[in-house]
């Protein structure tokens, strides 16, 4: 914790975060993480199609380069290693495309979070926060009355997931600023 940190260490309300809590509570919870089937969104289907084209394409290219290498061009060996690697990278890329939530990650996520007054959190952690542990977490400080009422009466799993995510955001925000 450096002396120029604006936020008190003991979890005082964060100026940006508190306002955002109010904004978000009435807002885009319906589109938030959890609930929808990630494998069949439009984005995911496009990624599936791309993968189905890409991987066999890489296999064909690798086979072609093996032929070249066997023909005596030693550079062909390099490329016959590289094309399978490209196929693997494509698969990794596809995995991220399917599992990332475009509403909180990437360029669009950044824009949304900035519009909501939230500080964008670190990538990766958020996707996990959105997917799983819906649990009992609520917003630590500020905006508690509004969300608290919602929580006790309805127990909307999406809202709970969103709260967990907000809590994580709040935690991250401090460490980001404190460095």
């Amino acid at each position, binding site marked *: 914790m450096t*002396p*120029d940190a*604006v936020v008190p260490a003991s979890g005082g309300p964060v100026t940006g975060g508190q306002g955002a809590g109010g904004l978000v509570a009435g807002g885009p919870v319906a589109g938030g993480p959890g609930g929808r089937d990630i494998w069949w969104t439009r984005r995911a289907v496009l990624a599936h199609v791309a993968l189905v084209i890409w991987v066999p394409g890489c296999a064909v290219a690798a086979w072609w380069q093996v032929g070249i290498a066997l023909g005596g061009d030693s*550079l062909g060996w390099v490329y016959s290693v590289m094309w399978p690697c490209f196929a693997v990278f494509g698969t990794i890329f596809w995995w991220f495309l399917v599992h990332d939530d475009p509403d909180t990650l*990437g*360029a669009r996520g*950044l824009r949304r979070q900035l519009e909501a007054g939230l500080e964008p959190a670190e990538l990766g952690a958020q996707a996990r926060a959105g997917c799983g542990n819906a649990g009992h977490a609520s917003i630590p400080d500020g905006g508690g009355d509004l969300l608290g009422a919602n929580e006790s009466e309805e127990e909307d799993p999406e809202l709970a997931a969103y709260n967990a995510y907000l809590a994580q955001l709040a935690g991250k925000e401090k*460490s*980001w*600023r404190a460095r």
Partner: protein
Amino acid sequence: MPPDKDHRALVRYRVLAYTTATLLIVLVFAGIPLQIWYHNLWVVEIVGTLHGYLYLVYLLVAFDFTRRLRIPLVKMLLVLLAGTVPFAAIVAERLLTRRYANRLSASHDALSPASARQVK
């Protein structure tokens, strides 16, 4: 200040961008002419092999960095492809580094007012 991880990703990315770009320029503007006109293969073989394997590393590192920087998908693909076009990787590196710096100064302006700066 942002987390150190982002900065390390930037450094990794810049090192690999410059390395692959340099190798590719040597390959295209020295190796291939030598191969075509002088039938001298060793530059192409050595530099081509090096560039080939380093490009794989470049892909991973550039993917990681553009993700942290939240580059839109199409631009991310362009950055990844830039490693195969002479000089393109250098242009991409300039643009991304500037974007990274802008992001830093923007978050500084937003988060730490001048008064907080002076406490030190």
